[in-house]
Structure formats: structure tokens, C-alpha cells
């Protein structure tokens, strides 16, 4: 049975902050197929198109029929632990300070044997469910999970290295004024965060839901205007060393395309709030988070972006907005590379239109802010990197896979 986590005590300021180390992150190009699956929380292995053989480790020809057609496909994740060991001595500095560390050989029901991390509640001989997760280096590894969930299983030390669980972490929600921000505060507080910092520009200005927000246990309101570099710098100076997860809930969806608008005022606002806002947060909170990637139970873990799925393909009805979202998406890819050395993940939550006033004229399905918040907590618990939330986002994800040109035409129809 997993020992439940204990809420970390206040940090001794004289103690050295443990420097983040990473497990080896070098992979063959083919092995990134596993990373792609792990980034979305799927369990995929190579499946030979010609003979159906399922392959692992990743390779460039089928080891049964030599076919070169061996794409990654989702496969059944069940298996049995044939043998386990507890590593007590490791040549790698990352694992050296994390031993003892358990691994095992899992015979997968679908064929291959998989040497994997073992969850603490998994014993030799047990049936397991294999799960691909991203380790601190940002690459896929498999952890064998109990076949049926066990109590406090999310608190397992080896699993928690692979996730960004909000439990006992301190989370900054950058904007508590909108519906998404408020839903996020609720979901994160419910998930066991020890502090939820809630950013408000001009905190003295009242807004709907304010009283309820301030009553949520653990909430600490901070003054934060992400369009104001000084405001971001000041707040970061006060709390950045205590922010383990940052969720940027600041949004600015505005209807309108590229030609139809007069002038650049709205487009500038969109870029200032969304793109430059992201840059300000990255510049003022990022370096401190990166330095705290291995700082105990509440180490810095994730920088979360809520993006429109139309960052992936422009939706001309919201054409300028889509373009600003695409700029944000591109920046998050750079941020991901920059935060990786600290073992801090960048999570992108791709959503379709939200059920808010700014998408009033858009027909359903629309995503409720609460559903987006719940999905964000789920993504943090799984440590996944790219989540497609709701029917519209998943639909666009699927259509992009099949035929991007068709999607471009259809969104513009």
C-alpha cells in the first residue's frame, strides 16, 4: 500500500536547493514515437502493418517479417510482471540520488517484454497496466501500474517523478477574474494544492464570483496584471520561489478575421495579453521554476497554457485570435525546451470554444470552464504534455491527422 504523502514543512532557507538532474534523455528518432504517445497519455507501440506483430523496443523493421511499415498504434496495455529488481547502485547521477529504485520485466499480453519502472503497489507475478509517461528529461518511459487502482497510488515516489500532481503543491492561477480562472482555482484547490495564488489585475475592482473565490481554502490573492511587465516582475519577486505550478488562465478571445477589422488595436491587445503576457510570465517566473525542479515533494513541476485548438489551424471567424494563439503555441515549444533542463513540464491544454460570453454566437458543442479545469488537473496528474479537451478539440486533432488541407478549407467554409 502506498504511504500517503506528508505535507512538506516550510523550507529551511539555509538549506541548499537540490539542483535538478535529469535521467538520460537521448533517444533514437524512432523511439520518439513513444514520447509522442506519452505526451498525450496514450499507450502505443509499433505494430507491423504487414504481419501484425507488435514490437518493442522501437526499431526500424519488423523483427518477424522485416517489413519496413511499422507505425506506432495504440495497443492493449495489460501484462504480467515476470521478474523484479530493486536497483540500489546506479551509475547515473539522477538515479543515484533516488535509489532504491524498482524496475521489472513485464510480459505484455500483446507480445513483447517490456523492462519498466514498477509502481510501489506492484509485485512480481502481478497483473499490471502499462502506462507511458514523460520522465524529467521529457522522454517516454513506461511504469507498470496496479491493475486496479490502489489507495494513494498517485503518491508513489517513482510515479510522482513522472507526474505534476497538484497535491501539496503551490499553484499560481494568473487571472481569477474570468470564469475559466475561477473554475481552475476550484479544481486545483480540490486536488489538494496547499496554496492557490490567484492573480488579479487591479484587485480592488469588484467582479462576479469574487466573494466565493476568496472563501476557497488556500486561496491567496496576488496583484498581477500580465500586460504590465512591472506588475509581473513585482509579483514574481514576491512569490516565484513558491510557485510549483503556473496556470495561465488569462484569456482574450475576440471574434473577427483579418481583413474585416479596422486598424490593429484589437489585434495588438490580443498579442499583448496572450503572446506578450506569456513571455512576461516565462521571463519572470520561468527561471525560478527551472531552478526548483528537484526541490522535494513540492518541487516546481509545470507551466500550464490554455490554448485555443485553433492555434493548430486557423479558424477564420476568429482569425486574428487564432493567429495570436498560434504565436503562443510556438512560444510554448521554446519554453518547453528551456524548462526541460529543470525537469519542469510545459502542458498545453487545447480547447475548442468555451461556453462563455465571448463565444456567444458559436453553436454547441462548447466547453464549460469547469470541464477545462477538470481536464487540466487530470493532465497534471498524468504529467501529459498535450491535452485535447472536449469534442471540438478532439475532432480537430483527429482531422489534422487525416488531412490538414481539408481541415483548412472546412474551417473557412
Amino acid at each position, binding site marked *: 500500500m502506498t504511504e500517503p504523502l506528508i505535507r512538506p514543512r516550510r523550507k529551511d532557507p539555509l538549506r541548499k536547493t537540490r539542483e535538478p538532474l535529469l*535521467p*538520460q534523455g*537521448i*533517444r*533514437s528518432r524512432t*523511439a520518439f514515437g513513444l514520447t509522442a504517445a506519452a505526451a498525450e497519455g496514450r499507450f502505443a507501440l509499433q505494430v507491423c502493418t504487414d504481419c501484425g506483430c507488435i514490437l*518493442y*523496443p*522501437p526499431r526500424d523493421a519488423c*523483427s518477424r517479417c522485416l517489413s519496413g511499415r511499422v507505425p506506432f498504434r495504440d495497443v492493449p496495455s495489460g501484462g504480467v510482471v*515476470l*521478474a*523484479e*529488481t*530493486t*536497483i*540500489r*547502485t*546506479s*551509475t*547515473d547521477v*539522477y*538515479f543515484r540520488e533516488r*535509489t532504491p*529504485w*524498482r*524496475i*521489472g*520485466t513485464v*510480459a505484455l499480453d500483446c507480445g513483447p*517484454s517490456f*523492462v*519498466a*519502472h514498477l509502481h510501489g503497489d506492484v509485485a*512480481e507475478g502481478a497483473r499490471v497496466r502499462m502506462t507511458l509517461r514523460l*520522465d524529467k*528529461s521529457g*522522454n517516454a*518511459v513506461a511504469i507498470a501500474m496496479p491493475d486496479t487502482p490502489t489507495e494513494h497510488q498517485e503518491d508513489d515516489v517513482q510515479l510522482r517523478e513522472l507526474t505534476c500532481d497538484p497535491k501539496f503543491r503551490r499553484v499560481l492561477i494568473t487571472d481569477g477574474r474570468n470564469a475559466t480562472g475561477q473554475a481552475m482555482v476550484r479544481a486545483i484547490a480540490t486536488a489538494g494544492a496547499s496554496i492557490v495564488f490567484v492573480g488579479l489585475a487591479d484587485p480592488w475592482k469588484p467582479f462576479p464570483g469574487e466573494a466565493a473565490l476568496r472563501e476557497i481554502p488556500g486561496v491567496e490573492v496576488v496583484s498581477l496584471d500580465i500586460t504590465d511587465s512591472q506588475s509581473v516582475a513585482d509579483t514574481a519577486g514576491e512569490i516565484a520561489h513558491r510557485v510549483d505550478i503556473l496556470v495561465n488562465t488569462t484569456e482574450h478571445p475576440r471574434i473577427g478575421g483579418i481583413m474585416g477589422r479596422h486598424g490593429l488595436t484589437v489585434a495588438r491587445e490580443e498579442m499583448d495579453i496572450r503572446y506578450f503576457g506569456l513571455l512576461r510570465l516565462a521571463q519572470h517566473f520561468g527561471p525560478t521554476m527551472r531552478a526548483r525542479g528537484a526541490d522535494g515533494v513540492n518541487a516546481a513541476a509545470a507551466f500550464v497554457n490554455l490554448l485555443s485548438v485553433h492555434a493548430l489551424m486557423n479558424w477564420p471567424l476568429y482569425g486574428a485570435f487564432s493567429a495570436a494563439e498560434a504565436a503562443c503555441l510556438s512560444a510554448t515549444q521554446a519554453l518547453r525546451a528551456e524548462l526541460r533542463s529543470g525537469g519542469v513540464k510545459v502542458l498545453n491544454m487545447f480547447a475548442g470554444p468555451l461556453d462563455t460570453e465571448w463565444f456567444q454566437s458559436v453553436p454547441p458543442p462548447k466547453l464549460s470552464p469547469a470541464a477545462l479545469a477538470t481536464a487540466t488537473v487530470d493532465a497534471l496528474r498524468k504529467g501529459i504534455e498535450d491535452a485535447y479537451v472536449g469534442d471540438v478539440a478532439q475532432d480537430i486533432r483527429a482531422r489534422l491527422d487525416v488531412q490538414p488541407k481539408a481541415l483548412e478549407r472546412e474551417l473557412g467554409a
Partner: protein
Amino acid sequence: MKRRGYDGVAVCAPISVPYRRYSVDSAHWWVGRALYAMTQRTGLKPTDLDGLSVSSFTLAPDTAVGLTQHLGLSPRWLDHVPMGGASGGIALRRAARAVQCGDADFVACVAADTNHVDSFRKTLSSFSRFAQDAVYPYGSGGPNASFALITRHYMNRTGATREDFGRICVAQRANAQRYDGALMQKPLTLDDYMCARAISDPIHLFDCVMPCAGAEAFLVCREDDARSLGLPFARVLSTIERHNAYQDDPIQFRGGWAVDRDDLWSVAGIGPDAVDFLQTYDDYPVIVMMQIEDLGFCAKGEAPAFVRAHTLTTDGDFPHNTSGGQLSAGQAGAGGGYLGMVEAVRQLTDQAGDTTVPDARIGLVSGFGMINYDRGLASSAVLLARA
């Protein structure tokens, strides 16, 4: 087609360059020391060595080709055998055919590796593509962890106990005390073995080899040439090699020897009871047990009983790894794949000194190598006889 024997082939000039735990020198230096010793021993000049077979993990960025210029050799037959613990037998069987057919007259077979303070970790992290993708990110326990899983499974299947493995390690340490070249000569009792610290359960300290620097070499030529040089030699009775056997076994329980052992014995025209000593590849004792079984000394799964019923020291009824094996001599990288071969040639040419097995006429040398992902892929075995 019926396989040809190895008539007329001589294996001679067994060379062991004394091991060191760490070396500031390069693999090239160690190869150089071994070949220098070979020229001293045989009276051959470097240019007389018209064949060269090299095994090394730490020669990068060079290969055997670069080594010829480095060392001033000009062979007309050149081989690079990157097969780890199976290298000795595989180098020998290739060289034997070369001299038998006249493609070369004197093939120097050498395995050497250096061991810098950090080279073990570097070798592990980039050992193979599968290791990089699918092993090293999982705790970076190296071969200790891989063999821990194999050992655990073997124990579950056969009922082998740690004491059984300990018998192998303790006997080898006793042998090492008679061999000056062994790095570990301190007496080892079964108690010491059992009480050692855990490395990767069920692997404990004395199940593990100590990586070191060193070189091993031997010369393959025709019998008449060996005679004219005045070199005592051993004959080759039979050889086998196999890679990636039993790939559908979910975890390694047997090796390639089991596929080819009938061939091994039938080419030699003898059976296991004709063997006077056995040199196995002993990076972990579980692999010794698999070799004892898969080469036909006992039935599958019965090696634990076999090692309980026999004495494995040089003066015992089943002399095994007579120079202490890698477990006591040290693992000089690819040199580990030559250790048993070089020792066997010494045994069969009356050069074994204190480790001599009395009246030894036939020896079996077995190799095993390359944990590419979850198991060793390469296996080899060579039957040698006194000339």
C-alpha cells in the same frame, strides 16, 4: 553440408597483460602491450603478423583498421569482433579458417580495453540503441539490473538459491588465489558472499565483476609453423556461435549454446564427460549455470544441483574458470571474452603454473555477450585439446 574440422590449426602464445583497476592509458596502449608481449614470446616481428583480430569497447573513434597504422602493422587479413564476452571463441573460429585456408599465416587475436574512472558509465549509457532507448532510462542500473531480472526469474523457475550461486563465486576466488593476474585475491567464504551488500536484488556484491583495464591475446597459426617457432600449442576440436537465439522467450532462461550444442559435440566426436575443465563466461553466476545446462553437462534447470554435487576448484572434480574468472580476475572489457580462452590454452600447453588442472587433455571454453536490451545475444563455445 557436413562441417569441416579444424585439422592443422594451432592456438598458441597465450598472453595476459596484468590488469589494473583503473588506467590512464588508452585501449590502443593495452593492445600494443599485448602484441609486444606476443612478438617477444614468439620471435615474430610485427610485420610477420599478417592477420589481426581485435575486440575492444574503448577504441573509439578508431576501429581495427586505424589500429594497424597506429601500431605499424600491415596485415592481409583483418577482423574486428565487437561481440563482448563471445569474442574469444568467435575470433578463434574465424582466424582458424583463415590460417587453415592460407588467407593468413599468423593471426594475432587480441582483446583489450582501458578503464578510465568514468568509462564504465559512458559505455553503459550508449552501449546499444536499445540500451539507450529502453534500458538506461530505467534506473541506470547497468548489467547488474538486467542480470538481476534474469537471475530472479531463473531462481523462480529452478529453485536456485543464493547459496548455489555463491558456490560458484567462492570456488573461483579459491582459483584466483593461485593466479597472479587476478585483481581479487582476498579469500572469500560463503558467509562473506551471503552477507555482501545488495546491488540490485538478488544480485549482491560478489555476483558482480569488477570493471578494469587489461588485455588478453593468443596466436592462431598452422601446426607446422607453431612447431618451427618452438611454440607449444593447443588444437581446435570444434566451435559454435549463435546470436539472438530463442527470441520469443519472454525473459532469458537459456542461451544459444542449446541450439548448437549437438553440433559442437558431434564435430568433436566426444561428449561432455570427455571434458577436463570448463571455462565459462561468468559476468554473473546465473549465466554460468545456464552454460552448464545448455552445453549439456546437466539437464535444464539442474545446474543448482550440479554445482552442489561438484567441486569447481582447479583440484576439484569439475575444474571451472581456473584463473578465477572475471568474478575474481576482473573484467577487462572485451578482455573478459578472452580470459577463459587464454587460460585454456595455458592449461593445454603446460603454462598454467599454479592453476594447472592435473592431466587436462580437453577443455571447453564458452562465451556469452552483449546485453543489447534485456538479454545476452551472442553465444560461442570452443572445444580445445592438448596437441
